[in-house]
């Protein structure tokens, strides 16, 4: 047996960067964000069969008109269509970018009309700051999996500059080149809609996953002032339910836009991340969502969260990069677990 005191002395040599405390205190010296409304977690209904509800039945929900271009950005071939992955190193040889390969496919317009269009809500919030105007355009939210996509624009008559676009279309507002960043209150990743953007008006869309108890809000976060400069709410409570499936006794929830996997309930090894997720259709085709061994990741965003006891089980949620026709699925494969779906369709 090794000497425990030696281990303690060894790891006591490790300490946070000297800049850590300075950076954190800089971020907290300004007043705290306030006015956030906290509320209980909505309970996702456990369903054993397909849910089909109408968007029009929900009070306060306004359908976004003509969403076809937007849907092509969300789920289609806009931007980088296909890549075997992006691996980059800096001048010293350290790995700086490690994006697995992906494949975007054309939008099936019929499927989009059937499964998506009626569930995109028109949004009206705006935030103005230092010559910029952020305008919410539309939101697509699935309450079953807690996944969604928010579409918005950023305008400035003098030009919108300073943001950086990675090879897969995702956007980063680098504090060294732009003084602020749009910031969603839920976990998210931003992408650029190049097809519609101009020098003075840029279209962004954020894939997000419900995280915590807060409301969904878009804000502008000032890097310089270390505080929010305005907030616009997105009322997902008014969003109507799109179709969804609950599988494997509730351990897998899936909708046309995302999947939520409760790993412990499913029997997946909690000690390592999920490495392989494939959705198989009745016609024999398949959607490889994630294949660690093949360096493929066809999700637009993924988040692991929870683990604070039975009421908050650990779960991993993915937002798809294409529309999934869940009524045509026959199997979901997650690592070594195969889950039959829509068994009346037969096996592939």
């Amino acid at each position, binding site marked *: 047996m090794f000497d425990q005191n030696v281990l303690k002395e060894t790891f006591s040599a490790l300490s946070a960067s000297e800049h850590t405390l300075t950076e954190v205190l800089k971020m907290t010296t300004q007043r705290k964000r306030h006015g956030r409304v906290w509320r209980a977690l909505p309970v996702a209904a456990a369903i054993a069969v397909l849910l089909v509800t109408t968007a029009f039945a929900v009070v306060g929900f306004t359908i976004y008109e003509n969403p076809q271009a937007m849907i092509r950005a969300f789920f289609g071939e806009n931007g980088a269509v296909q890549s075997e992955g992006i691996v980059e190193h800096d001048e010293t040889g350290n790995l700086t*970018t490690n994006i697995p390969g992906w494949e975007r496919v054309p939008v099936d317009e019929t499927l989009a009309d059937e499964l998506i269009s009626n569930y995109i809500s028109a949004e009206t919030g705006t935030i103005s700051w230092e010559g910029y105007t952020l305008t919410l355009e539309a939101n697509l939210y699935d309450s079953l999996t807690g996944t969604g996509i928010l579409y918005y624009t950023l305008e400035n008559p003098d030009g919108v500059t300073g943001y950086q676009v990675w090879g897969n279309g995702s956007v980063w507002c680098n504090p060294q080149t732009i003084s602020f960043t749009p910031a969603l209150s839920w976990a998210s990743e931003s992408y650029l809609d190049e097809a519609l953007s101009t020098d003075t008006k840029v279209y962004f869309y954020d894939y997000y996953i419900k995280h915590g108890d807060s409301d969904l809000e878009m804000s502008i976060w000032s890097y310089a002032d270390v505080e929010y400069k305005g907030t616009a709410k997105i009322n997902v409570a008014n969003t109507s339910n799109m179709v969804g499936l609950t599988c494997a006794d509730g351990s897998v929830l899936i909708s046309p836009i995302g999947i939520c996997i409760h790993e412990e309930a499913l029997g997946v090894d909690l000690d390592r991340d999920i490495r392989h997720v494939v959705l198989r259709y009745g016609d024999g085709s398949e959607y490889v969502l994630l294949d660690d061994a093949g360096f493929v990741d066809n999700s637009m965003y993924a988040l692991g969260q929870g683990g604070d006891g039975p009421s908050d089980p650990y779960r991993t949620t993915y937002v798809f990069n294409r529309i999934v026709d869940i009524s045509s699925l026959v199997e979901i494969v997650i690592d070594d677990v195969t889950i039959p779906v829509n068994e009346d369709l037969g096996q592939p």
Partner: protein
Amino acid sequence: MVTDEQFTQYAKQYMDTVFRVAFSYMKSRTDADDITQMVLIKLYRTDKEFESDAHRKHWLIRVTINECKKALLSPWRHAESMDDYASTLTFLSPEHSELFYAVMDLPKKYRVAVFLYYYEDYSTDEISQLLGIKAATVRTHLKRGREQLKLTLSEGNGYV
């Protein structure tokens, strides 16, 4: 909600703890620093009432582990050589240095369990809660981690 003065005290008190947990998980100084900042900001913003320092530390480690899990899902994480960071550390003896490399060479699930058990003095039940896995699994990880450490160190100079 803590005052700024209280938060500064807590940040100083716990930032190295958070960093060590994050480093033992991520094996990257840059990632561990980023996660340390995020976790401390979460401490600043939380409305949670802590019953004791131990409760606060437990919460911080729990949040740190969750942030590490999230970071591992991100394609943007840093993948830097641990040797670069290790070369900046001052160990008391070659024995300490060898033990550091041996622990960090363990698979993540063994490494984190060993760190929490032997460095942070958490029980297997407490580690079970922190990692969200069964206590029996923690014990297995500790056993296998010890076995691997014994093997690695005995191949070196017999510190076990």
